[in-house]
C-alpha cells in the first residue's frame, strides 16, 4: 500500500513539474485577465497576443451577459480587465460607474471601426467601449421540414413542431421576442406586457425541446431539432455546416445587438487592456476572428475584404428594411428583477 502511494506521489509530482514547466515558460511579467463569451474568439488569438507582447492572457468565458454581470458585481471580488458586454449591459455598467474610460491614444486602431457603430445610445460619447461584433436575433429552421419560410415569431408556437423547438436560456432574448410577437417593445416596462409574455411563454413550454445555450449549434447541425432561436453569427456558422438550414428575421421585428470591448474600472492593468483591445481591432486579427465566429464585423477593412456574397447575405449584414424593424435592448434598471423572476418561473414551471 505504502509503495503504491509513494509511487503515486512521485508520479504526480513529476507530472506537476512537467506541466507547470510548459505553462509558465511564456509568463515573463504581466498578466491580463480577459472575460469573454464562450466560442467568441478564434483559436490561437490570445496566444498570438502573448507571443507578440509577452503579456500572459488569462482567458475565461461566460454564456450570457447576466452570468458575466453577476460574476463581476455580486462577489465584489473579480479580477477581470477586459470584458465583452452587450449594449444594455454596457449602459448598466456605465450607470453603475463600473467601467473605465478608454484612452484612445492607446487604441489607434479605433479609426478602423466604422463610424456607424460608434456613439450608439448605450455609450453616447463612446468613452467606454470599442465595437467588437454585432448581429441580430432570428430563427434558424430546417428547410426540409418547414415548407414555407416563417415570417412570424408565431412559428415558435406552432403545434406541429412540438418537441422540435429550441429556445435560448437567456432572459432578454426569450422575453424580448415574445413581447415583439405580441406587439410590444422589446424593452417594455409594463406589468401588463410582462403578464401577457408570461402567459405566452408558458403556453409555449410544452412545445419546446430544450432551453439551451451554445450546444444549440451542434444540435441544429446534427438535425436534433427543426426550429431554433439563434444569433445571426451562430446561424451563419450552422448554415455553413448544414445546407438544409436557413435564417430569417420575422416581420414583427427583432433585436439588433452590439457586443463591445470594455475595461473594468477595477482593472489594475488598464494600459495592457488597451493594448489588447487595440490588438483585437487590428485588421488581420479582426479578420481571423470574424472568419472563425461568423458574426458581423464593425471593422472597415475586414468588411471591405469580404466577398460580395457575404456582404449581400442579409443573415450577416441585414439591409435597411430589416434594420428599421429591429430594436436595441435598453437597460431596464430596477425592472430587471421582474424579468429575471419571470424567466426563472418559466424555467421552473
Amino acid at each position, binding site marked *: 500500500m505504502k509503495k503504491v502511494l509513494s509511487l503515486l506521489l512521485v508520479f504526480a509530482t513529476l507530472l506537476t513539474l512537467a506541466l507547470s514547466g510548459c505553462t509558465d515558460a511564456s509568463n515573463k511579467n504581466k498578466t491580463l485577465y480577459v472575460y469573454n463569451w464562450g466560442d467568441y474568439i478564434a483559436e490561437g488569438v490570445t496566444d498570438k497576443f502573448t507571443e507578440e507582447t509577452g503579456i500572459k492572457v488569462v482567458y475565461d468565458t461566460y454564456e450570457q451577459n447576466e452570468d458575466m454581470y*453577476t460574476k463581476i458585481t*455580486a462577489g465584489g471580488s473579480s479580477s477581470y480587465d477586459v470584458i465583452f458586454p452587450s449594449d444594455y449591459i454596457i449602459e448598466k455598467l456605465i450607470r453603475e460607474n463600473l467601467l473605465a474610460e478608454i484612452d484612445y491614444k492607446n487604441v489607434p486602431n479605433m479609426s478602423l471601426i466604422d463610424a456607424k457603430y460608434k456613439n450608439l445610445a448605450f455609450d453616447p460619447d463612446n468613452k467606454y467601449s470599442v465595437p467588437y461584433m454585432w448581429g441580430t436575433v432570428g430563427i434558424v429552421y430546417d428547410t426540409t421540414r418547414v415548407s414555407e419560410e416563417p415570417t412570424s415569431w408565431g412559428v415558435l408556437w406552432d403545434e406541429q413542431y412540438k418537441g422540435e423547438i429550441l429556445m435560448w*436560456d437567456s432572459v432578454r432574448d426569450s422575453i424580448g421576442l415574445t413581447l415583439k410577437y405580441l406587439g410590444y417593445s422589446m424593452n417594455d416596462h409594463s406589468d401588463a406586457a410582462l403578464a401577457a409574455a408570461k402567459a405566452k411563454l408558458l403556453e409555449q413550454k410544452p412545445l419546446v425541446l430544450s432551453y439551451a445555450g451554445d450546444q444549440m449549434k451542434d444540435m441544429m447541425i446534427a438535425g436534433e431539432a427543426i426550429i431554433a432561436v439563434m444569433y445571426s453569427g451562430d446561424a451563419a456558422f450552422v448554415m455553413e455546416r448544414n445546407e438544409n438550414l436557413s435564417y430569417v428575421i420575422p416581420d414583427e421585428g427583432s433585436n439588433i445587438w452590439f457586443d463591445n470591448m470594455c475595461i473594468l474600472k477595477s482593472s489594475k492593468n488598464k494600459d495592457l487592456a488597451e493594448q489588447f483591445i487595440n490588438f483585437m481591432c487590428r485588421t488581420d486579427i479582426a479578420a481571423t476572428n470574424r472568419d472563425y465566429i461568423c458574426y458581423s464585423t464593425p471593422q472597415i477593412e475586414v468588411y471591405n475584404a469580404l466577398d460580395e456574397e457575404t456582404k449581400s447575405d442579409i443573415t450577416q449584414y441585414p439591409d435597411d428594411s430589416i434594420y428599421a424593424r429591429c430594436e436595441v435592448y435598453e437597460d431596464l434598471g430596477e425592472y430587471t428583477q421582474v424579468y429575471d423572476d419571470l424567466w426563472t418561473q418559466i424555467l421552473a414551471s
Partner: protein
Amino acid sequence: MRKRRTSLLALPFTIYALIFIAAPLLLIVVYSFCVSPQNGVTLTLEHYKKFFDFSNPVYLQVLWRSIYIAVISTAICLLLGYPMAYILSKLRPGLRQVLSVLFVLPMWMNFLLRTYSWMSLLEKTGLINSFLEAINLPAFNIMYTQWAIVLGNVYNFLPFMILPIYNVLIKIDQSVIEAAQDLGADSMKVFGRVILPLSLGGVASGISMTFMPAVTTFVISKLLGGGQNALIGDLIEKQFKTTGNWGFGSAMSVIIMVLILLAMNFTSSYEKDREEGGQLL
C-alpha cells in the same frame, strides 16, 4: 495533564472548521433573511414567502419535482442494486473482489464525461436511435424529459446503492444462515427473515447516498433535462450564477438543507454504528 495538552492538536482544525465550515453555513442562514445581502443587512422574510407562495406555487412545484425524481431514481437504484449486491456477495471471495472493483471503476471516471456520453447515446440522432433505426424499431426519445434525468441519476448513483448493501451482506455471519436452514427454513424464508432484516443498515446507507445527490443535482438536469425540467439545484445555481439574487438562493439552500436533514434523520435510525465499518466511508 498530558491528555489535555494533546487535545490541543485539534486546535488548527477547530479554527479552520469554524471559519470554513460553521461560519459559511451561518452566513447562508443570515443571507436567506436579507433583502439583498451584497448591499448590507436589511432583514426580510420575502424570500421564504416567495418560495412558499401558495397562490403561485412554481417554486414548490420545483421542490416537489426534485423530490419526486429523486425518490423514483432511488427506488430504481434499490430495485436494480439489491439483487446485484446479493449476487456479488454470493461469489467466491477472490472473484467478488475483482468484480466489485469493476463496479467501482466507472465512478472513477469523470462524472461529467460519463453524463455527457449519455447525451450522445440518447439523442434523436444518437447511437441508440441509429441502432434502433437500423433494425427497424421505433425511435426511443427520452432526451430532455424527466426520464432522462432519472436515467442519469440511476446511472451515476447505482454503485452507491450496490456497495453499502454488498458490504453489509458479506459481513453476515454464515452460521446464522445455516442455523436458520437447520431449523427448516426454505431459501425464501431465510432471505425474508434473516438476510433482508440484517441488510437493512446497508439499504439505509444506500438510500441516503443516492437520494442526497439526486435531489440536489443541477448538472444532470441541465445536461440531460435540457432546462425543460428545472430542479431545485438548477434554481439555486441560477440565483448565484446568473440573476445574482443571493438572498433567494440562500433561502433555497436552507430549505434543501432542512429537507436533507429530515431525510437523513429518517434513514439513520436504520444505520447502526455509522462510525464503524465501510458504510459511511
